[in-house]
């Protein structure tokens, strides 16, 4: 099959991921809009100030930022055909993403024990659905990265696969920037 020429000089799949990211802005935008519009309108506690754990979340924010660093280094390694480095950094993305998810699981179960459930109040409903959907996106990203790692170990992640890694990376970084916004508007601005 002959590959079609691209009008903008951007591979189709890369542009497709950017278009999808543009759409995802509206998805997380609507969730954040609802969280902010409903802020302070719960009729019962616990309130964000009582329950949110800033030190823990600061650490997991740092972890997710560093996973983005691992992601660009992985892409760089794949494009330069440095197979060992590629496996190392893709593994790093998975480990850091997994650590972030573990932090979220701990946070959620801790909140449940403290009395903040999905049903308890408006804050619980909006908080868990917003951060839960972000966590689901991270989970999809981790599965995607694991697929790339398996490909790398099978020797099928050469430089000709650079676009595959770059598209996965765009998704990963987007999930990271969404967290940058959530960390600020949910955790820090109370």
């Amino acid at each position: 099959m002959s590959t079609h020429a691209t009008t903008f000089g951007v591979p189709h799949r890369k542009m497709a991921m950017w278009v999808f990211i543009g759409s995802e802005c509206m998805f997380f935008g609507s969730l954040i809009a609802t969280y902010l519009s409903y802020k302070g309108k719960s009729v019962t506690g616990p309130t964000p100030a009582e329950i949110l754990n800033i030190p823990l979340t600061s650490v997991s924010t740092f972890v997710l930022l560093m996973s983005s660093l691992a992601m660009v280094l992985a892409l760089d390694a794949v494009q330069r055909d440095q197979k060992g480095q590629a496996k190392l950094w893709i593994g790093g993305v998975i480990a850091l993403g997994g650590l972030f998810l573990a932090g979220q699981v701990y946070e959620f179960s801790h909140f449940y024990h403290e009395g903040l459930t999905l049903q308890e109040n408006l804050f619980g409903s909006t908080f868990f659905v917003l951060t839960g959907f972000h966590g689901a996106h991270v989970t999809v990203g981790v599965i995607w990265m694991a697929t790339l790692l398996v490909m790398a170990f099978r020797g099928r992640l050469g430089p000709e696969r650079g676009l595959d890694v770059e598209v996965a990376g765009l998704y990963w970084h987007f999930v990271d920037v969404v967290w940058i916004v959530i960390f600020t508007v949910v955790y820090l601005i109370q």
Partner: protein
Amino acid sequence: MNEIAEHQSGAHASRSTYWLVALILAIITMLEVAVFYIPFLRTAIAPILLVLSATKFALVAMFFMHLRYDRPILTAILSTGLVVAAAIILALMLLFGALRLMAPA
């Protein structure tokens, strides 16, 4: 025209740039947490934090997502989504009477 060959011709930043950007991101995150804990900054906490987090957002998009080195059409696509989403967030907050950038002193 080959997708892959063309893709490789696109210049990306060097590894040292990536490490530097990551360092700046970490420092901004520390600043954000500091702003949260410093009492006299709390009256203007929202604008300060929004600027800091927008800076982080821009750094990741420009360097890690390569928008700085890539075609402008990709920046345009992201901006379209971001602008409409930000407008909807603002409008809904106004409609729900939830917009208060400055915390009461």
